[in-house]
């Protein structure tokens, strides 16, 4: 296989690409534990650089199929051919599907908004009440 292992591509990309700080954050709540504070997902800058450059990350559906593969068994995503460059918005959507449980972004059918993509400026810098953060149901979607 000419594209090698995903980890090798990540290490090579890190040596070649400047990190990219995303202008987005992903807020989400667990619909099965609404007392828990909202979680904030931060894209990794090296990962984002690889996503924007292309030729490093595998197709998202390989990760989704690998969710059903038992530990210790051969997984698809490390050996899949890399995909091309994404826009930042496409990369965030990819990250939602990769790093957030499907019960939140795919299966939840309730009326409450349990996931929002927001500009980083909307995340409070004051963490005094961090464990009381909830998604503002009136907030406009950013993307």
């Amino acid at each position, binding site marked *: 296989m000419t594209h090698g292992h*995903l980890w090798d591509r*990540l290490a090579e990309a890190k040596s070649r690409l400047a990190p990219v700080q995303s202008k987005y954050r992903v807020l989400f709540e667990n619909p099965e534990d609404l007392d828990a504070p909202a979680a904030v997902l931060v894209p990794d*800058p090296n990962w984002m650089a690889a996503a924007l450059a292309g030729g490093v990350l595998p197709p998202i559906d390989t990760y989704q199929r690998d969710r059903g593969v038992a*530990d210790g068994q051969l997984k698809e995503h490390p050996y899949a051919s890399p995909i091309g460059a994404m826009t930042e918005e496409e990369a965030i959507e990819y*990250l939602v599907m990769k790093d957030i449980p499907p019960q939140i972004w795919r299966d939840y059918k309730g009326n409450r908004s349990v996931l929002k993509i927001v500009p980083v400026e909307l995340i409070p810098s004051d963490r005094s009440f961090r464990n009381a953060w909830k998604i503002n149901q009136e907030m406009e979607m950013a993307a």
Partner: protein
Amino acid sequence: MSTLSVSNITDGTDTVETGYVVNGSAKAWVHANASAAPLNSLNVSSGLDNGVGDYTYTYTAALTLSYYSSQANVHVSSSAAYTCNTNAQTTTTITLGTYRSDQIARSDRENLFAVFGDLA
């Protein structure tokens, strides 16, 4: 990037197989701020701020088994004592907890980890 392809590495006296060096390197690591934003990393796709002193990081390339070695720590500039525990680890994620030294109260701190094990 040039690739050096050798089977063994030697200092003139001792010789080891290259595989020992590659397999012994950290497979994922991060230094993140107190909001789970990675400042530098390898093989991490995102940081997750779950709440005060509660952070989860997701790998881009998974480990093969959840039984691997993880070392976690906090970065503090003061003399105050804090600790960082690995609270959970799977083949795709690691969850860290940062605490005051009493091990009871969580506290937001810069946090770091390195993972050693076999890739999937």
